């Protein structure tokens, strides 16, 4: 049983290291698996290398000031003009997965000097960043273009095999 436990831990560690990788190389990984929020949708296999090309090596487009590249948004530059590389460039290390938890709300309320009080949570950050750009660039924008629904997701959206019986007209009120 302990062997299984250790294997599981090792697997988890390996997975964490895979996700931490971007901090270790300037170019970042070729692909990143975005799986920390997996629930209704399967993990996203993110082609990092391709997106680096799309933004012409300007990491700040997605990573703000954390990669050490010069920030272009003048609103950020007011403070982060000379900010160096951050310890972590992973989205989830700054963007909270539970932004509206009582603890997080309290944390924001207690931090009197905190400027970034309107920072989106992890899910919001992913979708706004990805989708915002996809809309501008004419890239795919449907949910399942990036991640397929899990079975739980299909049950949640009442789609696929959980879809309501067709042919039934919506009851009028």
């Amino acid at each position, binding site marked *: 049983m302990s062997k299984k436990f250790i294997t599981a831990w090792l697997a988890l560690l390996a997975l964490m290291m895979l996700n931490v990788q971007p901090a270790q190389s300037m170019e970042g990984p070729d692909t990143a698996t975005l799986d920390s929020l997996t629930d209704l949708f399967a993990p996203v296999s993110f082609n990092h290398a391709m997106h680096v090309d799309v933004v012409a090596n300007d990491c700040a487009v997605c990573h703000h000031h954390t990669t050490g590249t010069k920030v272009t948004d003048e*609103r950020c530059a007011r403070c982060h003009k000379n900010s160096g590389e951050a310890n972590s460039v992973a989205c989830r290390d700054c963007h909270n997965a539970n*932004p*509206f*938890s*009582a603890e997080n*709300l309290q944390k924001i*309320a207690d931090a009197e000097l905190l400027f970034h*009080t*309107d920072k*989106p*949570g992890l*899910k*919001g*950050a992913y*979708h*706004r960043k990805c*989708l915002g750009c996809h*809309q501008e660039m004419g890239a795919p*924008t449907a*949910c399942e273009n990036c991640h397929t629904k899990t079975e739980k997701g299909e049950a*949640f*959206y*009442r*789609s696929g095999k*959980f*879809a*309501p019986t067709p042919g*039934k*007209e*919506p*009851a*009028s*009120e």
Partner: protein
Amino acid sequence: MKNLLDRRKFLKGGLASGVLASVLGTGKKAFAEHSFGGYPNSMGVLVDLSKCIGCRTCEAACNKEQEMPAPDKPFDDMSVFDEIRHGQKRRTSEKTHTVVNRYDVPGHDGPVFRKFQCNHCNEPGCLSSCFVNAYTKTPEGAVVYNEKVCVGCRTCMIACPFYVPAYKYSSPINPVITKCKMCYDTRLKNGRPPACVEACPQEVMTFGKRRDLIKLGHERIQKNPGKYIDHIYGEKEVGGTAWMYLSSVPFAEVGFNTELGDQPIVNYVKEFLTVVPMVLTIWPALFTGFHLLAKRKENQKESQKATTPSDRNA
């Protein structure tokens, strides 16, 4: 409303004499000065319409959380945006507590989506219209409804300025009002955000203390010049609501009623309703008194007539 005002004037006229008028005057003033204005630490939600992509995930989350009946179409079916019933876009019903609608705003790039549900007013019209007190505004900010005491009069449906409460017409045995309760039982009272807020992929909705959200909303408007209409819908409307909205297109273009005014709905009837008990208790006594006085004079005259008939001839 005009009728009520006229009636009020009439009633005031009727009570204009002496002591009664002064009693009514002070009573009225006390009510006008006292405004509830909402619980100080109540929670709220700021909905940023400019971020909504119309994915309907909030509708699905609500359906699951509140154990609502199965929808007519899957929640990833976008054809619902074209549905028009009785000349209206989709609205809240016994089958759904929240609805996302699509609006094509001329001059705006792409469609605009608007989520709506109960706005959880600081001073709810539904609550003040209910004569069995089926509604409660909780300190956390939710307006909840107790179906056990509801008599099914549906006055709340008429009192609501946003047409939110729906009626379970499908149930002949236990028809009740259905509306969004801000996930009070399952989430809000434990300090967790409503299910729709948590499910939204775009984080269209920000959950927090209402007073913080107002600050945050104004900051967002200020920090993004030209992006938003300089107004938070719900900050002041009908006395303030727990759910508030930011939009990059005029609110009237996406189905908001911009003519509701800042007065809580109850204010339109407060003065009138204060007079009702007074009328019911004082008027009968007062007019019985008048009646008896008048009768007494008449009686006296008649008895005088009867006793001294010679006086008249003299």
